[in-house]
């Protein structure tokens, strides 16, 4: 059974293609059953509706923003958006300058204000700390037992800040599953009830914090390094260093003097008075609350304890960022209605389908039965593209935008082009007088190079656009590249093998006049002409007359009868020197 030959290898390739399609479908089906994927591709904002804001971060002092700060800005905005309870928001950077926030639906004014607000970092002393979970309703402190401040607070760590309201808020606060209701930006002169979200295996903690004592803008710099032990030898503990400016140094000294007393009173290392803690608050969320183990007089505190390199770097970045209050200027704020996008998509699809239909009609017209191969190839390419987009939507969160749809529609033409190049090559080979089977093989050899070279240009364009361009252009570039790849797969694994198989059928192989490969219609001169006559090199196509007399020759051509023309050709051939070695099929 081990037959070989083009036909069998063609069948094998077709089977493989079937396997690829089946596997992709199975992957998608599996994802759908698991409830993670869906059969429909994910849609981008312009088709789903929503709001897109483009924000330009501005650093105080007007200096430009570098990449690191931009990434920080994204992190900050992401935290804000997530905190405001908007699901499925997408935040990305654009051209190394801007932050693009895409939200489904219409954000409230508060969300908008929050997203825009400048990042706000400050230091507040901890008054109380507690387990992150909300106290169950039945276990909450009854009204009469709630704390009642007895005097005006003496300093920021004073328990007198904790009013009944503050305490109620503190008990109700759930930091394990943070609620998604909007929080107003806090008042720096008032206490704040807030969370330190769970991270790196540390549980979430909730705090009552005193008023702001040191502002983030007082930070001059921050770095992270491996901690040095008492002898100056490097340990394997990571530490974050802060450097305050003069104002910050003075303030920080006062604060640590106070907090350190709590620390000492509580028994130093073994103690655990939350009042010795100093919370670093970014956008009203505690990012770290180290204990004050010493009085810092030089404005260079070091934070240690349980850092990994990654978490140390993250904290250090946040601190440095806090030193630069970044505000965001709205560059564009677009509300995109879903109906509009949907309508555009429907119309686009409709127009695309009509266009596709026209392509089908045209190729049937041009290529007769071969046109069906084009149609089938386009269908396979479409199926591959669709599966890829749906799977990427699930795994990579790729969303199809209107520009992406446009990319797909544009690709119809470029995909069909590979088939056209290939078919024309086969026809050229038939014109040279080859049989269909060898015409398919030879035509493919020559078409393959062209297809690969031209697709390389397309892929290059798609790649460059994808990596350089922004916004919409990216979605477009992505589908353009995707379809180029799908097209290559289809030409190699579907169109060519299909033709190899078809070439051996009676209908095509004998050049039925509707097969689109009728040698007679292609003016072919068969190599073997019966009666033992073999085509001689002289039977080659007539050379083009020189430019000068083209017109005259064409005119003469028109006026000749067939017999006359035959004669004229014969004369030409007789005249032709037999030395002209022909080089065909290279």
């Amino acid at each position: 059974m081990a037959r070989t030959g083009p036909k069998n290898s063609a069948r094998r390739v077709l089977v493989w293609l079937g396997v690829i399609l089946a596997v992709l479908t199975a992957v998608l089906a599996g994802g759908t059953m698991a409830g993670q994927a869906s059969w429909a591709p994910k849609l981008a904002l312009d088709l789903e509706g929503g709001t897109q804001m483009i924000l330009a971060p501005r650093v105080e002092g007007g200096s430009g923003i570098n990449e690191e700060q931009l990434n920080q800005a994204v992190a900050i905005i992401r935290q804000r958006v997530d905190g405001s309870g908007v699901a499925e928001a997408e935040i990305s950077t654009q051209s190394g300058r801007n932050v693009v926030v895409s939200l489904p639906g219409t954000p409230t004014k508060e969300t908008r204000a929050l997203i825009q607000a400048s990042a706000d970092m400050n230091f507040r002393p901890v008054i109380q700390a507690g387990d992150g979970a909300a106290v169950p309703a039945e276990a909450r402190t009854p009204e009469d037992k709630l704390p009642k401040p007895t005097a005006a607070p003496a300093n920021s760590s004073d328990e007198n800040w904790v009013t009944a309201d503050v305490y109620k808020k503190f008990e109700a606060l759930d930091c394990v599953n943070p609620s998604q209701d909007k929080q107003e930006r806090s008042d720096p002169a008032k206490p704040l009830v807030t969370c330190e979200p769970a991270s790196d295996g540390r549980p979430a903690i909730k705090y009552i914090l005193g008023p702001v004592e040191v502002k983030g803008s007082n930070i001059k710099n921050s770095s992270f390094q491996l901690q040095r032990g008492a002898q100056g030898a490097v340990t394997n503990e990571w530490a974050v260093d802060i450097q305050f400016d003069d104002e910050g140094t003075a303030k920080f000294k006062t604060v640590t003097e106070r907090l350190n007393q709590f620390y000492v009173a509580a028994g130093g290392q073994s103690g655990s008075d939350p009042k010795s803690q100093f919370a670093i608050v970014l956008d009203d969320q505690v990012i770290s609350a180290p204990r004050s183990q010493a009085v810092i007089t030089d404005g260079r505190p070091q934070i240690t304890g349980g850092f990994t390199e990654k978490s140390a770097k993250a904290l250090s970045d946040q601190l440095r960022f806090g030193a630069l209050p970044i505000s965001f200027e709205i560059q564009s704020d677009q509300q995109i209605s879903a109906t509009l996008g949907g309508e555009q998509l429907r119309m686009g699809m409709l127009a695309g389908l009509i266009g596709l239909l026209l392509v089908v009609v045209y190729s049937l017209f041009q290529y007769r039965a071969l046109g069906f191969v084009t149609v089938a190839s386009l269908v396979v390419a479409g199926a591959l593209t669709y599966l890829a987009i749906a799977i990427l939507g699930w795994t990579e969160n790729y969303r199809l935008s209107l520009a992406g749809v446009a990319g797909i529609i544009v690709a119809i033409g470029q995909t069909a082009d590979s088939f056209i190049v290939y078919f024309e090559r086969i026809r050229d080979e038939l014109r040279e007088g080859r049989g269909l089977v060898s015409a398919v093989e030879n035509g493919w050899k020559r078409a393959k190079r062209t297809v690969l070279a031209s697709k390389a240009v397309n892929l290059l364009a798609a790649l460059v656009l994808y990596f350089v361009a922004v916004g919409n252009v990216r979605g477009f570039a992505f589908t353009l590249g995707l379809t180029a790849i799908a097209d290559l797969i289809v030409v190699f694994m579907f169109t060519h093998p299909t033709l190899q198989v078809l070439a051996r059928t009676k209908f095509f192989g004998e050049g039925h006049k509707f097969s689109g490969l009728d040698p007679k219609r292609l003016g072919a001169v068969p190599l073997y002409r019966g009666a033992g006559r073999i085509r001689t090199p002289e039977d080659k196509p007539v050379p083009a007359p020189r430019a000068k007399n083209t017109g005259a020759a064409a005119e003469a051509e028109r006026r000749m009868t067939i017999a006359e023309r035959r004669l004229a050709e014969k004369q030409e051939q007789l005249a032709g020197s037999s030395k002209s070695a022909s080089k065909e099929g290279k």
Partner: protein
Amino acid sequence: MASFATFGNDLYTGKRSYDFVGSKKIWFLIAAVAVALSILLPVVKGGFNLGIEFRGGSEFTVSNVKDRDAALGEKAVQDVVSGSLPRVANVAGNTMRIQTDKLNDEEVLKVKEGLTKAYGVTDNEVTSTFVGPTWGADVTKQALIGLAIFVGLAAVLMALYFRTWKMSLSALAGMAATMFVTAGVYSLSDFEVTPSAIIGFLTVLSYSLYDTVVVFDKIRENTSELQSSTRRTFAEEVNLAVNQTLVRSINTMMVAILPVGAILFIGAGLLGAGTLRDLSLALFVGILIGTAATIFVAAPLYAWLRQGEPDLVKQAKRVEQRRAENAAKAAPVTA
């Protein structure tokens, strides 16, 4: 269309041949004039008709309107801001889009109210948007950077593949002609330049190069054995290659332009302005120009660039010589 196959045969054998290369002077002249006009026109007109993304401004969308009369929207805006020139367009079904210069918050609210009344819709069917002028500039800047990188890489890729920089140069010249003339058409017709149009524009350039690569590949094939042949001169071989791929060029152009045209002409009625229309317009214009540029600019230019090479000059002489001999030999032969 049965004759189309015959047409293809005749082109293939050289029985029917269009002299693209021989009359290159005419094509170059036409191309040069078209490019020059395309450069001058925007200068004279003072630039392009830029979309809101480049000018910056406020945009209102009114959905579910009963009456698609643009005048209603214009009046609503002018009542609030006298002397303004809003652009009102029907973007889809029953949705109107009204673009104005940048308004302050108060004006936005007033215009919103005015539009609600004018089109008889409810409050939440009117949305307002603000677009900053830097957004479009940003897109364009990135697109231009992308373009520069793409052109550089494509030039290297083609030079490596074809093993001659002259092909790269000719292909890029064809692309440049496409670029200028497409831009010129935009300036002439006052089509709105939006980010979508920019995308279309970039695609056109990639299409233009793509198309050229296919034709050049055939040229490369035809001219690879040139030194050992006295059948045709280099220029004639180039011309034959263009003729032999002409059917493919026409077919590909048709196939590429049909879906785009469908969006443009079928969609425009149903769709009004918007991403798809802007994009397909740029593509429609560009694919036509790009296909023509390959045939009339890139290929003849390549022939012209290489004609003067000593080897090719010698070969051309040999061809002449042989033809002269043939003519002499053929004379005594009578039927």
